[in-house]
């Protein structure tokens, strides 16, 4: 509570100093100008310059101090830190007021500060990526100190149960097995089902929209398809679990097959529906940017429209189509809510899509929502799984970007 009050006082004083700086800077500049000297900048710019040099260093110092406080655990009392920042603000105010002279380029100084602030904002995106990498890798390393990497990659049993007992103080956790093969098998199975649904429907829809459809249909159909991508995944998960899974069980029962209510088919199909717009939209753009001269050439040789599409347009657009499919695939592999709600929890190494199987993302969620200590092997295993997931999706994305770049260079298209 005391820290909050201190912070409020700090902000208040800083605001006052800022206001003071603005008006003092402006009045000094106005005075100088009305005395008849030609100045490099407008009075307001001098005013803003003084404000920036009052508040800027103070905020930077206090932020750095807070960061050091957290990071190193150094014991700087908040009071001293904030007081020091305010002193720096006052010094900044005096120095900058002194700088308000006719031959000082206030506008360029402001420009430099703004440029640095913008560049700082741009660095945050890089920091985010590093943050993800560092957080995942450091925790995953701790996991691999407990369990061997090789076993994690090649083991076929995923049974973290014993590590739970170990963290509860019973047993030594030696019975826990972390073989991720069944999880990845489940992920690939569900992804494959999703791709089997999404690629044909998405690609054919894209062909219809770009080659056959009248302009009116196109302008309506594209946003309608985009709605599919905008539906939250938790809603798809509910749809898969409550509506699609029972239908599949009934159909399987009708055919004399035995299906689990947590079968892999339901989340796979629903995920496929979700991915259709990703594939159709990008494929549509790619097919549209295949140069018209190729279509004209083909038609001039007497090919029918269908043959032109099949033998000329689609092969030309192939890199883009593959790129779209890879993007959709990476989206499917990282998808969480649909599988958490509709797929099973049991690691199951099988090729039968009617059985229940679990995926990497399901286990990550399961490991991190239990009542376990953060230090337990099961919790840390989530980060190891996350690391592998990160590497796979990153690789898919990179290949996808390279493919689309090749397409772009080949046909000199700039808007992809």
């Amino acid at each position, binding site marked *: 509570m005391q820290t909050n009050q201190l912070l409020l006082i700090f902000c208040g004083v800083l605001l006052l100093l800022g206001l003071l700086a603005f008006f003092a800077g402006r009045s000094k500049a106005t005075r100088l100008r009305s005395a008849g000297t030609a100045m490099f900048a407008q009075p307001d710019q001098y005013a803003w310059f003084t404000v920036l040099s009052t508040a800027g260093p103070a905020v930077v110092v206090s932020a750095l101090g807070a960061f050091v406080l*957290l990071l190193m655990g150094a014991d700087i009392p908040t009071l001293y830190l904030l007081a020091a920042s305010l002193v720096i603000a006052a010094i900044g105010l005096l120095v900058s007021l002194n700088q308000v002279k006719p031959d000082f380029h206030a*506008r*360029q100084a402001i*420009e430099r500060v*703004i*440029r640095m602030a*913008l*560049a700082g*904002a741009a660095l*945050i*995106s890089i920091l*985010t*990526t590093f*943050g*993800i990498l560092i*957080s*995942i890798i*450091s925790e995953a390393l701790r996991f691999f100190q407990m369990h061997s990497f090789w076993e994690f990659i090649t083991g076929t049993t995923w049974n973290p149960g014993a590590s739970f007992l170990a963290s509860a103080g019973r047993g030594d956790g030696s019975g826990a097995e972390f073989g991720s093969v069944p999880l990845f098998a489940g992920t690939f199975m569900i992804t494959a089902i999703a791709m089997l649904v999404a690629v*044909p*429907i998405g690609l*054919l*829809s894209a*062909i*219809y929209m770009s*080659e056959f459809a009248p302009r009116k249909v196109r302008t309506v159909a594209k946003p*309608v*398809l985009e*709605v*599919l991508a*905008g*539906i*939250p*995944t*938790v*809603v798809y*998960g*509910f749809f898969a679990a*409550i509506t699609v899974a029972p239908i599949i069980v009934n159909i399987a029962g009708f055919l004399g097959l035995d299906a689990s209510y947590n079968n892999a088919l339901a989340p796979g199909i629903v995920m496929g529906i979700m991915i*259709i717009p990703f594939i159709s939209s990008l494929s549509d753009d790619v097919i549209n940017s295949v140069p018209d001269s190729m279509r004209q050439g083909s038609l001039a040789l007497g090919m*029918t429209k*269908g*043959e032109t599409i*099949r033998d000329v347009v689609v092969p030309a657009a192939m890199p883009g189509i593959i790129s779209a499919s890879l993007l959709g695939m*990476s*989206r499917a*592999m*990282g*998808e*969480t*809510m649909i599988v*958490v*709600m509709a797929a099973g929890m049991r690691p199951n190494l099988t090729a039968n899509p009617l059985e229940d199987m679990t995926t990497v993302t399901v286990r*990550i*969620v399961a490991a*991190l929502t239990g009542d376990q200590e953060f230090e337990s092997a099961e919790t840390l295993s*989530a980060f190891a799984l996350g690391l592998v*997931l990160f590497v796979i*999706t*990153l690789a898919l*994305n990179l290949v996808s970007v390279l493919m689309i770049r090749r397409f772009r260079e080949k046909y000199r298209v700039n808007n992809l």
Partner: protein
Amino acid sequence: MSHSFDEISQQLKRRHRKSTRLKWITMGSLGLAGLFLVLFFADMLSKGLPAFQQAYIQTEISYTEEAETDGRRAFDEELLPLISRTVVRVIPMELRNNPDMIGTSEEQWVLATSEVDQYLKGHRHRLSEEEQEALDARVEAGQVDLRFNSTFFGSGDSKIAENAGILSAVVGTIMTMIVTLAISFPIGVMTAIYLEEFAPDNRLTQIIEININNLAAIPSILFGLLGLAIFINFFGVPRSSPLVGGMTLALMTLPVIIISTRTALRSVPESIRHAGFGVGCSRWQVVRDHVLPLAMPGIMTGSIIGLAQAMGETAPLIIVGMVAFIPDVGVSFTNAATVMPAQIFTWAGEPEQAFVEKTAGGILVLLTILISLNAFAVVMRKKFERRW
């Protein structure tokens, strides 16, 4: 080998038929995708619309002496299993606060249990034969009725199905979105301005660009891992709070806002910048006074779409603990909260039949908000978009 004209025209017909077939197949697949959408919405509407109505029973509440210790004494014994526990529970408290009510009685419409509700709506229920008969008699007499479900919109979560509402989740979503926008909008727009208007074309800029595109494609659950490891474990931001949820979602929304802002900035013609420089403006003055105002509609559209995306996101929030059970509506950035998708997820895990309806009802509320946000964005773009 030569063909007769007849053979050739036969062949030609076949080829044209093939071409037409391709047209129908592609049209069919687009229709299939549309059909999915229609089926999906029909399913959600049929499951969710009943949630907006709730069964109420008209009964006489007699505030006797015994009712002060045992609320059940205030009701007709036959009706007790049909009346919601939440109604019975509050009676002793009410009597203690207003002692002069003892001895009186009044006729009131009270909340029925979810089983009665499900029975009236024709869903699966667990009422016994006698209870059904008693209920049927009261339906005949007009003492049981389906009314607008104000509990659903006016209260927080509850383990008792008929008392569960979505308000605490809506408030949580609003708080989380405030944090998300407050972080991602300024940083996103600043990054885009830097990359589009200021950045020199060097290695660092290219790395930032590639990095932003990659960030957009990272699975959302990994952002949850980041939030857990860095925001919660390292910086000590309170778990389950809108603050940590909003920060995590902000990092996810950042690429969306950056990419759409860059597109908007790029569509402002170069001649406007040249005119600005021509009259002696500095780069920042040109951006602030001319480029940014012209790009604003595009930036707003992109931000709204990014916001809608963040609003539907669940996986990273589950990882940072925003699936908490929140019965009371609280407006705070640091206390535990839940958001709409997380509430839907929790309800979907409840075994009772009545919660299926609640889940679908929550989904309808969420979809309505998301669709209106997106529609708003599209309308805004149509209205303010300028072609140069």
